[in-house]
């Protein structure tokens, strides 16, 4: 088990190395010049060249790359080319809203989707099942921002129940946090609910026909207990996988919802950084999200053994 974990962790290193190379090359081999953005409207070509020099953009690619990676190994992700703020500061200011939004979304999604999926499997081939499944395909097919705007129109503009934008940290209190986080979280959850409900239903159908469930039922175990304890426990592996796989989905959703609801998270930070060609910020953010993605999926892999005692490494 321990060697397996170690091996898995080590296998992450080449992946992250490749990510860093991809990101670096993608940014440097395409047009766009942060110096021009810093200098503004009246800059002459000579000024631009001097600013580029000062930014270190005229050094050979390999030198730039080695400097960047060397810095990261010392915990230094560089400084924003545009605002001169250290990248780590920028990111740490922004990571809170995104994470709290993501966590709230996953909680909502799990609370809604798992019961939906379980009931759909239980009421297999009834109208309940069809309804759940239609909803879940629909969830995949609507653009996230459309959901966001419709919610915004109804709950903020027409009914005036919730503020239309902004973010309050959890430290400001549960109510102010929820007031501003609930619409973005619901927006984000729509696609996630669809995904998890669908997977839960499939996994449950699979499990419900296993012999031991039939036995349990024959022994008179109650429906609810049977569904939510015996069956769900065994369906947990595929569900956990899909939660992990959905993590990538979550990131793209976060970018969009942060834009609609004006939440100061890392999604908006990345979009802004890309539009301003702020290389160190883009590189750091993509590397960080990739690390997070790899870590989440690693944890989920490892948690299989927890959910399913039959899997041992």
């Amino acid at each position, binding site marked *: 088990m321990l060697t397996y974990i170690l091996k898995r962790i080590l296998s992450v290193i080449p992946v992250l190395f490749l990510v860093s190379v991809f990101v670096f090359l993608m940014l440097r081999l395409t047009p766009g010049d942060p110096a021009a953005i810093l200098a503004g409207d009246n800059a002459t070509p000579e000024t631009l060249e001097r600013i580029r020099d000062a930014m270190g953009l005229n050094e050979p690619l390999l030198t730039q790359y080695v400097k960047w990676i060397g810095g990261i190994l010392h915990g230094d992700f560089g400084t924003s080319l545009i605002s001169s703020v250290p990248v780590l500061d920028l990111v740490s200011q922004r990571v809170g809203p995104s994470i709290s939004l993501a966590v709230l979304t996953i909680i909502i999604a799990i609370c809604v989707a798992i019961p939906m999926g379980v009931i759909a499997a239980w009421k297999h081939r009834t109208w309940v099942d069809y309804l759940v499944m239609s909803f879940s395909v629909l969830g995949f097919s609507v653009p996230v921002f459309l959901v966001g*705007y419709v919610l915004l129109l109804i709950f903020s503009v027409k009914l005036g129940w919730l503020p239309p934008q902004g973010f309050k940290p959890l430290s400001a209190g549960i109510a102010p946090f929820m007031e501003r986080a609930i619409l973005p979280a619901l927006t984000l959850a729509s696609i996630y609910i669809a995904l998890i409900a669908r997977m839960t239903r499939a996994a449950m159908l699979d499990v419900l026909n296993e012999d031991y469930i039939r036995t349990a039922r024959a022994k008179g175990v109650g429906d609810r207990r049977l569904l939510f304890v015996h069956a769900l426990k065994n369906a947990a592996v595929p569900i956990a996988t899909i939660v992990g796989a959905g993590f990538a989905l979550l990131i793209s959703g976060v970018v969009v919802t942060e834009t609609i609801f004006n939440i100061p998270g890392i999604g908006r930070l990345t979009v802004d950084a890309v539009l301003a060609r702020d290389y160190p910020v883009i590189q750091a953010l993509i590397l960080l999200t990739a690390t997070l993605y790899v870590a989440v999926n690693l944890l989920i892999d490892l948690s299989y053994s927890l959910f399913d005692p039959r899997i041992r490494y």
Partner: protein
Amino acid sequence: MNTSRSAADKPLTLRLLSQISPSHTGFGPFIAAIMLLAVVLVTIFSPWIATHDPLAMDPLMRLKPPSEEHILGTDGFGRDLFSRMVLGGRISLLIGLCAAVVALGFGILIGLVAGYFRIADAIIMRAMDALMAMPSILIAIALVALNGPSIGSVIMAITIPEVPRVVRLVRSVVLTAREEPYVEAALALGSSTPKILFQHLLPNTMAPMIVQGTYIVASAILTEALLSFLGAGISTEIPTWGNIMAEGRQYFRINPGIILWPGLLLTICVLSINLIGDAARDALDPRMKKREA
């Protein structure tokens, strides 16, 4: 297909799994096919359906509400919204199809190589892992922003993050298939590598690829809309559902129709493609799960 073999292994599970698809809601796929056909026909015949030139602008007539002249009103440049929406669907569908074809093409090629050549496998798969670990939407925005928002770069931006999924799928199919007796026999008979790859292994990937392809079309249409929404889409000179909606953002409270109508059409279209994809999966390869990670 592999169906017969698996069916022998686990008949009960298989039967159940094949039932989890919504295609068993009876008319589902049928209705979906009709809806999709309708959308496709509308977009194909858009030049005849459109009431106006979708590019002709009249800034003095901007943001007009729906009228007899302009069925859905006009946009921020005074262009006819209905005509733009109809033509926009054509471009959106085209982008979706191209992205799927390109992603499948590259994916199959790389997947065959990875599945067949052990040496290449490790390197290719690490690279694919790296690509998958990078958040696709961010990569797409970066690619479009950096290369300029042309149709080509949007297709490329949508395609690149899709490739690793296809590669994984193809590779897994190839890995299974190459152990099959007939491939072993071909090897023993000294068939050339390309022949084995393209004549014996490639056909095995076709069924899952058709299914995967439909999902890529659906997701590409959505991604194009997302990219436009985030400001990294195609020029307003070429209407797409995505950029029509993106331009409607500003005016959402004044005329929600600018977002809602194209949004509705897009949703119907993507929904139908997804349903058809589900049906195709059941028909072709019941064991496939949607979007295997």
